[in-house]
C-alpha cells in the first residue's frame, strides 16, 4: 500500500516548500497509492473527484497541493487579506477534525515564514462566536473551513463583499450531499464561489465509494471536466453477525437485545455502535449504562439532538481512546477519524449497503487497517436481512445514487441570496444557476417562475415581494428582508425544540415540543444516556433533575427509519428464493445447510433462522416475487389484504395507494406499507376477487392515478412545510417561537385552490413522487404484480413474514373524496365507538 521512498521525488513538483516536504517525510514513509494518484491531478489545477475509503490518507490527498500552493505563494510575497482556499464539509465535527489534522503541517509551513506573512486557517460555522466572526471579517483566514449553509450565508454578507479570492475548493464526503437538497444548495453555492474566484476555481471532491461516480462528479463540477481518481484497493472488511440466544419475532427495540450488545462490547477495547434512530441510540445507551455499571462513565450517547459541548466532549474522549462504547445514530457516521475504535456494531441491519460500508469504515482507521464490524439483528426477520446484507457487503455491491433534479425551493432560496449579496442581472443569475450540476436541465419557465414568485407575483397583483425586478436586474426589496434572509438559509426543517438543562444550567440537549407535552408529571425520559425528569419548564427551556424512576421513556425525534435500498431488496429476494428452493428440496435440514454453507451462518443462527422459516411454512411458503404471495385475513366487517413485495417502502407505499384508490370507490381505505410489502384494510362490501384485485395493479394509467391519489391524502400538506421554509414562503420556526396557530397544511390547501401551478406546490409534488414514492420503480413493480402468477392464502392471522407489517403500523389513510362524506364517516365511527 505504501510506495517506496524513492518515488517521493516524482510525487510532487519542485516548487513545493521544503518545510512541507520535510514535515511529510518525517511523518510518513511515502505517499499512499490514493495520494499518488490524486496529486498527479491536484498539482496541475484540474478538477478531481477522489473516491477512496477512509484510512487511505484521504485528507492529505486533497489538502497537500493546497498547502503547498499557499506556502509557495507566501514565499513569493505578501499573502492578501483574503480567503484563498475553502473547505466544505457536511458535519461541523468533521471541520474540527480536519482543523486538528492540518495544524501540524501548517505549523511546519508557518515556522519557515516571517511572522507577518503566516498562513491563517479558521473554522466558520453556525456555532462560531460573534467575536470570532468579527475577527474573521477583519483578518480573513486564507484557508476557510465551513459548511454549505455557512458558506452560502457568507457569500451574501456585506463585510465579505471583498476578500474572497478562492483558487481551490475542497468538498469532503461529497457523496453525503448527493441524495438530498443540501447537495442542490452546495452545487449552487459552488457556482457563487466561482463567480468570486479570480480564475477558474479548482474543485476537489472527497467521497466514499460512490456509484455512479459520474453523478458525484457532476454534482461537484456541473458540465466542466473532472478527473475521477479511484483507489483500486478494496478495503478489507471483517463482518460478523452477533446474535443472542433468542430473537423477537418483529420490532425494532434495541433494549431487547442489549445483553448481546454488552457481550460484544466486552470483547473489544472501544466500540462504536450505530442505531437506526436517535431514540434507539438513547434507549440502548441507557441500557448499557445500567447493565455495565463499572464502565458507565465511559459509555456515552451521541446524536444530533445532544448539546454540542457534550458531543464535543465525547468526540475528544473517543479520539483520546478513553471511551468504552459510544452509541450513535448517524452523527458519527462520517469522516472523523477515531483510530482507537476497534469494533463497529450495527444495531439492526442498516437498510443499504453503502450505508453499512460507511459505518463499518469507522473502525480500523490506521492506514491499511482492517475494518471490523458486527451486525446485531433486532428480530428474526432482521437476522435474515443481516445474512443477505453480509453477502452484499462482501461482494461490494452498492446502490446507485439518486440526485434530486432542479429543486425549485432551493433555487428560490439561492436567488434570494444573490439578491441580498448585490443586485444581479437576471441573465447573469440564469447562467450561474444553469452551470450547477443538479440544475443542468432546469427550464427557463421554472427559473422565471421562481423570480416572479420572489417578487411577490402570483395570480394576484404583484406586491410585497422579497425582491424587486427592474430593467432585467433584481435586488432585495429592503434591508429588513435582507437581514431576515440570514435566518432562513438551509434545507433542513426542524420541529420546535425545547432545550434540556440541568439545575446548574448545564445543557444536555434538545427534544421536540410534542414529546415533552406527552409526558405525565414526574415521568422520566432519557437524555444523553441519563434518566431525567422535568422539574420546571420556562418557555423553551426545561430544567431537569436525575430520575430514579424505573420506567424511563425515550424521546422521539423527527426523521424516521432508513428505507431499504433497492440493492438490499434484491439481495434479500435472492436469499429468500434460495431458502424456498432449499425447503422444497429437503425441508428444514436443507435450509440449515444452505444458511451455514452459503451464508456462513453459525450453527445457532442457522437454527434460529430455520425455526422461524419452519413456523412460516405452517402458514405459507416463504414469500418471493414469482409467484407473488398474497395473504387474506377476513374479519366480520372488514378484510385485510397483504401483498408481499420486496421492493422498499417507497414502492410499497405507491402500490398500496394506487390499489386502495382503485378499489375504494369512494370509501375510506386504510393502507400500510413497509420495505417488504403492503396491506390494505377494506370494507367487506368491496369486491376483492382475484380479477378485481389484479385490475388494481394495472400498469396503464398507474402514474396518473398515483398523482391523483397523492392529492387526496394529507401527505403533501405535511411535506409542504419544509418546502415552504426552504423556499422562503414562511419563516423557519426557530427556538423561542411559540407554536403556529396557522399551519402549513392550510397554506398548502389555499395554494392548491387558488394557485395550483404555484412554484412550491410543483416542488412538493415533484419531491414526493420522486423521492418519497419512487414512482418509476413503483410502476415497474405494478406491472410485475399485474402480469405474474399469484399464490393466495386465506389466513386466520398474518404469517411470520407478514408480522413486521403489523408491528410497524404507520398507516396512511386514503380519505374519501367528498369532505362531507368523510365527516359522516367520522361521525358514524365515533358513535359506534361510544355505543360499544
Amino acid at each position: 500500500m505504501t510506495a517506496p521512498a524513492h518515488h517521493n521525488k516524482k510525487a510532487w513538483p519542485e516548487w513545493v516548500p521544503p518545510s512541507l516536504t520535510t514535515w511529510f517525510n518525517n511523518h510518513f514513509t511515502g505517499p499512499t497509492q490514493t495520494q499518488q494518484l490524486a496529486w498527479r491531478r491536484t498539482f496541475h489545477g484540474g478538477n478531481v473527484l477522489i473516491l477512496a475509503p477512509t484510512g487511505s490518507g484521504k485528507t492529505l490527498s486533497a489538502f497537500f497541493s493546497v498547502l503547498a500552493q499557499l506556502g509557495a505563494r507566501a514565499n513569493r510575497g505578501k499573502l492578501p487579506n483574503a480567503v484563498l482556499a475553502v473547505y466544505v464539509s457536511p458535519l461541523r465535527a468533521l471541520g474540527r477534525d480536519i482543523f486538528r489534522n492540518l495544524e501540524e503541517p501548517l505549523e511546519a509551513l508557518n515556522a519557515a515564514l516571517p511572522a507577518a506573512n503566516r498562513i491563517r486557517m479558521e473554522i466558520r460555522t453556525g456555532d462560531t462566536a460573534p467575536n470570532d466572526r468579527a475577527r474573521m471579517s477583519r483578518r480573513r483566514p486564507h484557508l476557510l473551513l465551513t459548511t454549505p449553509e455557512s458558506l452560502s450565508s457568507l457569500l451574501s454578507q456585506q463585510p465579505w463583499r471583498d476578500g474572497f479570492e478562492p483558487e481551490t475548493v475542497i468538498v469532503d464526503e461529497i457523496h453525503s450531499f448527493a441524495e438530498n437538497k443540501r447537495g442542490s444548495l452546495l452545487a449552487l453555492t459552488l457556482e457563487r464561489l466561482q463567480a468570486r474566484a479570480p480564475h477558474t476555481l479548482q474543485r476537489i471532491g472527497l467521497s466514499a465509494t460512490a456509484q455512479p461516480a459520474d453523478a458525484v462528479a457532476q454534482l461537484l463540477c456541473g458540465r466542466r471536466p473532472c478527473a475521477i481518481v479511484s483507489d483500486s484497493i478494496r478495503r478489507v472488511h471483517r463482518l460478523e453477525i452477533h446474535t443472542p440466544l433468542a430473537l423477537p419475532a418483529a420490532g425494532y427495540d434495541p433494549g431487547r437485545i442489549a445483553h448481546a450488545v454488552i457481550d460484544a462490547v466486552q470483547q473489544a477495547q472501544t466500540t462504536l455502535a450505530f442505531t437506526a434512530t436517535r431514540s434507539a441510540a438513547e434507549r440502548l445507551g441507557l441500557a448499557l449504562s445500567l447493565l455495565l455499571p463499572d464502565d458507565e462513565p465511559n459509555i456515552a450517547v451521541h446524536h444530533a439532538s445532544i448539546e454540542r459541548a457534550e458531543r464535543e466532549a465525547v468526540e475528544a474522549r473517543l479520539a483520546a481512546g478513553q471511551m468504552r462504547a459510544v452509541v450513535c445514530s448517524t452523527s458519527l457516521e462520517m469522516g472523523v477519524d477515531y483510530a482507537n475504535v476497534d469494533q463497529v456494531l450495527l444495531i439492526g441491519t442498516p437498510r443499504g449497503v453503502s450505508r453499512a460500508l460507511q459505518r463499518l469504515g469507522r473502525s480500523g482507521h490506521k492506514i491499511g487497517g482492517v475494518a471490523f464490524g458486527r451486525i446485531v439483528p433486532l428480530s428474526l426477520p432482521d437476522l435474515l436481512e443481516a445474512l443477505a446484507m453480509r453477502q452484499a457487503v462482501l461482494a461490494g455491491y452498492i446502490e446507485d445514487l439518486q440526485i434530486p433534479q432542479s429543486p425549485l425551493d432551493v433555487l428560490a432560496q439561492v436567488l434570494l441570496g444573490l439578491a441580498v449579496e448585490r443586485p444581479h442581472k437576471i441573465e447573469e443569475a440564469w447562467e450561474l444557476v444553469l452551470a450547477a450540476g443538479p440544475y443542468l436541465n432546469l427550464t427557463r419557465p421554472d427559473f422565471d417562475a421562481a423570480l416572479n414568485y420572489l417578487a411577490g407575483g402570483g395570480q394576484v397583483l404583484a406586491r410585497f415581494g422579497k425582491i424587486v425586478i427592474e430593467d432585467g436586474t433584481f435586488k432585495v426589496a429592503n434591508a429588513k428582508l435582507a437581514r431576515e434572509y440570514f435566518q432562513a438559509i438551509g434545507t433542513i426543517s426542524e420541529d420546535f425544540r425545547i432545550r434540556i438543562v440541568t439545575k446548574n444550567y448545564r445543557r444536555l440537549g434538545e427534544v421536540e415540543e410534542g414529546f415533552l407535552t406527552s409526558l405525565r408529571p414526574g415521568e422520566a425520559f432519557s437524555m444523553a444516556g441519563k434518566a431525567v425528569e422535568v422539574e420546571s419548564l420556562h418557555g423553551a427551556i426545561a430544567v431537569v433533575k436525575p430520575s430514579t424512576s424505573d420506567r424511563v421513556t425515550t424521546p422521539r425525534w423527527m426523521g424516521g427509519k432508513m428505507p431499504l435500498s433497492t440493492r438490499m431488496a434484491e439481495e434479500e429476494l435472492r436469499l429468500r428464493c434460495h431458502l424456498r428452493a432449499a425447503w422444497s428440496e429437503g425441508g428444514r435440514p436443507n435450509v440449515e445447510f444452505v444458511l451455514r454453507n452459503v451464508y456462513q451462518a453459525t450453527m445457532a443462527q442457522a437454527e434460529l433462522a430455520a425455526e422461524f422459516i419452519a413456523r412460516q411454512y405452517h402458514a405459507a411458503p416463504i414469500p418471493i416475487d414469482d409467484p407473488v404471495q398474497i395473504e387474506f385475513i377476513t374479519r366480520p366487517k372488514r378484510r385485510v389484504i397483504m401483498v408481499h413485495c420486496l421492493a422498499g417502502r417507497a414502492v410499497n407505499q405507491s402500490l398500496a395507494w394506487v390499489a386502495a384508490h382503485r378499489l375504494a370507490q369512494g370509501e375510506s381505505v386504510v393502507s400500510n406499507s413497509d420495505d417488504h410489502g403492503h396491506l390494505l384494510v377494506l370494507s367487506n362490501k368491496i369486491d376483492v376477487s382475484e380479477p378485481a384485485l389484479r385490475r388494481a395493479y394495472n400498469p396503464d394509467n398507474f402514474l396518473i392515478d398515483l398523482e391523483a391519489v397523492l392529492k387526496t391524502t394529507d401527505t403533501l400538506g405535511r411535506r409542504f412545510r419544509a418546502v415552504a421554509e426552504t423556499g422562503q414562503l414562511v419563516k423557519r420556526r426557530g427556538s423561542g417561537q411559540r407554536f403556529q396557530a396557522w399551519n402549513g397544511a392550510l397554506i398548502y390547501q389555499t395554494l392548491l385552490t387558488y394557485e395550483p401551478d404555484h412554484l412550491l406546490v410543483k416542488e412538493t409534488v415533484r419531491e414526493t413522487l420522486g423521492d418519497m414514492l419512487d414512482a418509476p420503480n413503483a410502476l415497474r413493480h405494478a406491472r410485475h404484480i399485474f402480469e405474474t402468477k399469484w399464490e393466495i392464502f386465506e389466513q386466520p392471522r398474518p404469517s411470520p413474514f407478514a408480522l413486521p407489517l403489523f408491528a410497524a403500523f404507520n398507516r396512511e389513510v386514503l380519505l374519501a373524496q367528498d369532505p362531507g362524506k368523510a365527516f359522516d364517516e367520522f361521525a358514524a365511527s365515533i358513535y359506534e365507538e361510544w355505543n360499544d
Partner: protein
Amino acid sequence: MIELHPSGALWLPEQGTALIADLHLGFAWAQRRRGELWPLTDAGAKEKLDALCRDLNPQTLVLVGDIIHAPNPSPEEAQLIAATLNIKPQIIYVAGNHDRGQNYQSEWRADGIRAIHGDELPAGPEPGTLTVVGHFHPVMKLRDAAQIKRRHRAFLHGNGLIVLPAFSPFASGTDMRDEMPAELQTYFGKNEVDVTLTSGQKLLPLGPYKLGRNGFRASRPATR
C-alpha cells in the same frame, strides 16, 4: 331562540340576526408585510360570507371582533376588505384585540344576548344573559375511524357562554382537549360544556364535556 349554523355563525331567527367571529380579513396581506410570501388571497372568506347571507338572509350581521387582522392596511387591502364587507345585511362591528385603530363598539346587546370579543373574559356568567364570544378559535382534535387525528371547528356552550369557532378559513385553531387556554378553563370550571363540531356543511353535536387536566374530556357518551 338560538341556532348554530355550520358556517360557524350563531343565528337568532326571531331577530333576523347572525353573529360571526374572527374574520381576520387581510391576514395574507399582513403576512406579506411581515416578509413572508403567502398567497395573496382571503382563502374563500368572501365566498363563505356570501353563502351565509344567501342561506340565512339576515337583516343584521354582528362581527364579534378580530375583523381586520392587522392595523394600517394598504389602500389595495382596504379596498378588498371593503369589497368583502359590501353585503346586504346591516353590519355591527364589535372590537377585538386585533382591531387596533378601528373605531368599533366594545359590545353589542339585544334581548338577553351580549356579544363581546372575549379577549377580556368576564369572571362568570351575567344572570339572565347569554354571552357570545370569539377569540379562542376552538377546535377539537379527534381520531377518525382510521385513528388519524383531525381538527374540527367547534362551538362551545356552557355556564352562560357561547364560544364561536373562527370564521377565517386560514385559522387552524386551538385544540380544546389539550391546549385549552387558562382563562377558558377558569371560566368553565366544573360546569358541563356542550360541544358541537362543524364541517362547514354540517353540524355534529358531541354532547357535554367536562374539564380534564389540560382541557375537555367526555363526561358521558353522546346519544343520537
